[in-house]
């Protein structure tokens, strides 16, 4: 059970669409003058780190950086 919860947290933490939405929200807050550059940088660093991990993980499960429709079974 504990492991399933962790899996779900992991999945959300590294969901690219979710991270993209958070980056956009951050950008809007900055453009609206609600946060300063320093806060933006701190929060953006954290999001970009998650984005980098998310994308690297996805590449690892694919064979290249474009659309890849090859199935798992073909990989060995």
């Amino acid at each position: 059970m504990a492991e399933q919860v962790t899996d779900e947290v992991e999945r959300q933490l590294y969901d690219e669409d979710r991270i993209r939405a958070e980056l956009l929200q951050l950008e809007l807050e900055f453009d609206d003058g609600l946060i300063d550059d320093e806060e933006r940088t701190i929060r953006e660093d954290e999001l970009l780190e998650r984005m980098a991990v998310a994308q690297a993980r996805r590449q690892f499960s694919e064979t290249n950086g474009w659309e890849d429709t090859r199935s798992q079974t073909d990989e060995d």
Partner: protein
Amino acid sequence: MTSESAKYVYGVISARADPPAGPGIGGAGLELIRAEDLAALVSDIDGGEIALGREAMTTHARVLEQALTAGTVLPMRFGVVMTDEDAVRADLLDAHGAQLRSQLEDLTGKVELKLRATYEEERLMREVMAQDPEILRLRDSLRGVPEDATYYARIQLGELVAAGVERARHADSDAILGALVPLSVAVEASEPAHERIAADASFLVERKRIAEFDDEMDRIGRVQAGRLRLKLTGPLPPHSFVRLAATEA
């Protein structure tokens, strides 16, 4: 002799090109792995690992933009690592040679421009209310009435506002894309990821038409001033227009 070290792959360019000055991710030098007329733009990875974060992602983007100033680039998404030089040649350049060549040819002389149009929130709300008298009527009817007594009216108000925003977004996105599509070779519009985004789109544009595209953007910006904020990014390598189906690999 082939190098044993793992390779970070940025993209594919013509074998006639020189590698950009760099440096690459982790400070490593950029090199080309060539196979006939194709070349993969790569750098070595120390110990097979890269520090994932802002620096690596910006370096990836910067290297590709450097390469773009010298010629056509098929950009990879961030994070592609291959085991060694042989793997890059066999699994990327040889396995997908035909598609890489045809896409390099198709994308020659073209760049990606990314546009995002964002509403000024208050102005959008004023417009939405002005266009639907029912919204004003409902809002006025809620004044001074306890919250729990107006539950359904509040829901209805929320729905009317959302529908009004949706209508504005459709109209604005159609107008903006309609003005820019004739200046582009192709367009990829994404579903807005936020309610204040009117349009989020990538355009594939011929280099020689960038100035014309910019002029049109300026014109739209003037018309929409105070209402929509426009942000144009580029010229970028054509990330949104590279496709590689690997089914036949």
